[in-house]
């Protein structure tokens, strides 16, 4: 049955949503429109004026081989960070859901990483992974040169991805756990009576039933790895060595704020925005169809 409330006063609903609209306008639409304008001009850093250049900024961005590298890197980053984070969170949630000994404690402990600000975690991980002073650095004592994120780009990227994934585990864990606990126990018990073991019940019952949550988390994780990686990278590697941890959002920051190329950064922001929108659209269009909302 559908229930709807109507307002007699036409003004009232607008007034009620006005605070939210104003916030969205001031903090999203207005800056976004500004960025859109800058993307088609060459903007002077100190605001002395600008010249209209049409699609020049986009042509330059797309014509730069380094830019494509950052796009590919961002994709890899998103897949790896999302994959690691969601898999581990799901495994942890499945165990906690089984009410093993100490569940109550783990339930709380696993959430903690989410409460840590990315830069703080970055500092800690930078120390852990530091080639000379860090904990992982002791590996270098045994096999000299085996681990060096300061000069080896692959090591540096791995280090940042691991940290990003670690930070996301808590968030994913809560959602997975909540979803698992919402599955009616009766369904589960029926399965058990029919002779399905824990593994079988997980594959045939739990995973399909939490699919909407998995889908939601997938979108949130991918978007977050495209847009929230900035703080972490800035603290851990500053995009280095030789740009090997430079993802799209970090390049925007560097070109815009440090390189003072506001227009180039604005064009890249537009590209990133479109990309994230497209990804979300694809996910809803193709993946959501296969998902059954209980």
């Amino acid at each position, binding site marked *: 049955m559908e229930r709807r409330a109507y307002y007699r006063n036409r003004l009232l609903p607008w007034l009620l949503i006005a605070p939210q609209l104003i916030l969205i306008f001031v903090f999203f639409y207005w800056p976004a429109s500004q960025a859109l304008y800058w993307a088609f001009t060459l903007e002077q850093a100190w605001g002395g004026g600008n010249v209209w250049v049409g699609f020049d900024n986009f042509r330059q961005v797309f014509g730069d081989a380094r830019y494509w590298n950052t796009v590919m890197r961002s994709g890899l980053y998103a897949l790896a960070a999302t994959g690691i984070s969601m898999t581990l969170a799901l495994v942890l949630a499945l165990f906690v859901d089984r009410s093993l000994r100490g569940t109550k404690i783990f339930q709380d402990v696993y959430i903690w990483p989410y409460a840590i600000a990315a830069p703080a975690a970055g500092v800690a991980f930078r120390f852990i992974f530091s080639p000379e002073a*860090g904990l992982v650095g002791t590996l270098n004592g045994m096999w000299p040169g085996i681990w060096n994120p300061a000069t080896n780009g692959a090591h540096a990227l791995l280090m940042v991805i691991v940290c990003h994934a670690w930070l996301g585990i808590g968030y994913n864990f809560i959602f997975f756990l909540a979803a698992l606990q919402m599955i009616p126990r009766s369904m589960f018990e029926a399965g058990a009576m029919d002779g399905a073991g824990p593994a079988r019940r997980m594959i045939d019952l739990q995973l399909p039933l939490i699919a909407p949550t998995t889908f939601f988390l997938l979108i949130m994780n991918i978007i977050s790895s495209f847009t929230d990686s900035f703080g972490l990278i800035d603290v851990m590697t500053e995009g280095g060595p030789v740009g090997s941890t430079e993802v799209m959002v970090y390049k925007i920051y560097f070109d815009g704020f440090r390189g003072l190329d506001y227009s180039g950064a604005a064009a890249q922001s537009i590209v990133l925005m479109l990309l994230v929108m497209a990804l979300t659209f694809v996910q809803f269009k193709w993946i959501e169809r296969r998902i059954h909302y209980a």
Partner: protein
Amino acid sequence: MTFTRLLAAALAASVSALTASPAFAASTKFEFWYGLSGDLGERVQEMCKRFNDSQNEYEIVCVGHDTYEATLQNTIAAFRANKQPAIAQIYDGGTLDLMLSGAYVPARELMEKNGHQIDWSNYFSGIASYYSTSQGELLSFPFNSSTAMIYYNTDALKKVGFEGLPETWEEVEQVARAMKGAGYDCPIAFDPTGVWQWFEQFSAIHNQPIATKGNGYEGLDAEVVFNKTKFVDQLTWLKKLHDEGLLVHKSKATGETSNAAFVNAKCQIVSSSIADHGTFAKQAVEGMNWEVAMLPIWAGTERKNSLVGGASLWTLKGKSDEEYKGAAAFYNFIAQPDQVEWWSTVTGYIPVTNTGFQAMKAKGFYDKAPYKGRELAIESLTYTPPTEYTRGIRLGNFTAIRKEMGDTIQQVLFQNVPVQEALDGAAERSNAVLRRFEKTYQGAQLN
């Protein structure tokens, strides 16, 4: 309960603010944003306090932004929102952007208008030229000025039997090899992001261009040429030393900076700013002996003056006459001989005027430890009158070019990209940055 307590506290605070304010009522407040942190940041605060204590017409409010880059970014953002400070400390790399912005009040105009007599020729020409128009008019005030130096652990030099200090790169290579042989793991500490000392200063003292048009002083259409100068050989040489283990990568990314490795006596040679002289004296491990020297040159090269580093103070447009009066008074205050001496003593930055330097020299400031050696920075800066390529670097978005160079050095050292190929690539990308900058400011005149 809590609420009433809060209310009471708020009331108390506002009452005390009310009663306190008459004391400041007569003074004009103006802001100064700076980018130094840690010990140096505290010294800036102390300087502000000294100014405020010296008079009661103006009150300077000094706000630290941690780094030069953050100061520049925040100042730009504030300027665009019309909330800029009267004075901002802007680093060397941000000079040209600001120069073309028209967002500043030229130093000479400010001082003349407010009735201060300044002998502009008193500034060391190598320092003034970095912040002047190509006609020589100083636009901002040199504030914390430094130049790159090389520091040697003299215990290690003694151990390998080297008399005095190496003066050429040949000698540096020789002692580094001897140190390695004597069991030192890290003869030279090298931070690849130290583009300023390893590339810019090298180019200046060997009189090598960084860009055409006199390093950009004569037009926005300058092009970088560092892929065709002696720096190609220098980078090849650095690579050779790195591969032999004579030059060791030390940076924030490895967990220990090159300066930290030097003061901990783990590395024996480091190149850094003269501004670190005081810090080294404080931090060097017990019993370690070290000395500072001018950057080495290649044998048979004629040494030129090195470039000034650090930052200068810009007066920004859009403030009241009263605030400008205060700013001018502040500049005048910090140029007084006793202030100059105090600032150089507590920081390691060099005096920027000839009289300032002579006064300190006459007092015997440079004769004994821990200040002995700092006069070499002045010698390095004033070694020759500035040439076309040693007066400074005037390239747009120079921070982006610095990053290209830092990446290039890392590519060569750590990823074995051939030197020429890496430098050509960096030059191409740097020129793209410059062309973009030129287009952004098309029609603007460099003066």
